[in-house]
């Protein structure tokens, strides 16, 4: 048992040291800028497709919805659109 514990400690030590063969240099501020520029278009596409799905759902259920529900949904959509523009147009503005 003691031998196993000793071996286990060695395993833990080897594991802890195992990433020491490389130096991970991360320029964190540059990385965040890069992530923003690379990932945003994907998010944009994703939010856009969500919006399109909502629109489609509303359209297909048009007959079933009361005029009040339609008005609420239209307001919600406007709000989402505004939020989307605020988030993404601000994020993608050129720096400096």
């Amino acid at each position, binding site marked *: 048992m003691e031998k196993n514990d000793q071996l*286990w400690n060695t395993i833990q030590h080897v594991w802890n040291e195992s990433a020491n063969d490389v130096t991970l240099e991360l320029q964190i501020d540059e*990385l965040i800028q890069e*992530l923003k520029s690379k990932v945003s278009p994907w998010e944009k596409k994703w939010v856009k497709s969500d919006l399109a799905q909502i629109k489609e759902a509303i359209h297909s259920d048009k007959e079933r919805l009361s005029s009040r529900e339609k008005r609420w949904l239209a307001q919600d959509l406007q709000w989402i659109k505004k939020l989307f523009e605020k988030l993404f147009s601000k994020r993608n503005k050129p720096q400096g």
Partner: protein
Amino acid sequence: MQEQIESQLKRLLNDHKQSLYRICKVYAVNPMEPKDLFQEVIIEIWRALPRYKEDAKLHTWAYTIALRVCSRKKAQYDKKDNLRLNALTVIPVSLPQEDEVQERTKALYQCIGHLAEKERQLIILHLEGLAYRDMASVSGITENHVAVKMKRIRKKLLACLTPKSK
């Protein structure tokens, strides 16, 4: 919101980048480099951060994302493996001399690599210092079940790493 996400990413990478890299190393199979997987993991964490709920510690949550990304990438690679030409072998002109530490590390990663996927994920989380309670919460099994599984995994790993006496 955006500032919070950025500061979470900064904190995570400052404190846990080595751990995330170690996870990538386990799954990196030639020609996939740990660096490639590490990049994928960072991008996936960045994408998922707006949905982070703080019901798990940030690094615990990030490890599970890393495990998911790496496991998915490896599975994709394994599928492509059918197209590999076994008749082709590339032999380095001269093999670099490996010291004892490198050999031990290689053996450990190989043995972890031989475990089943679920076992591999549990041992990685354990070696990264997660408590059984946290491992249970992210793997969806009970704490007792984690303890039972870990006993079995430790035994397997020790057997794999201990040279068999004749």
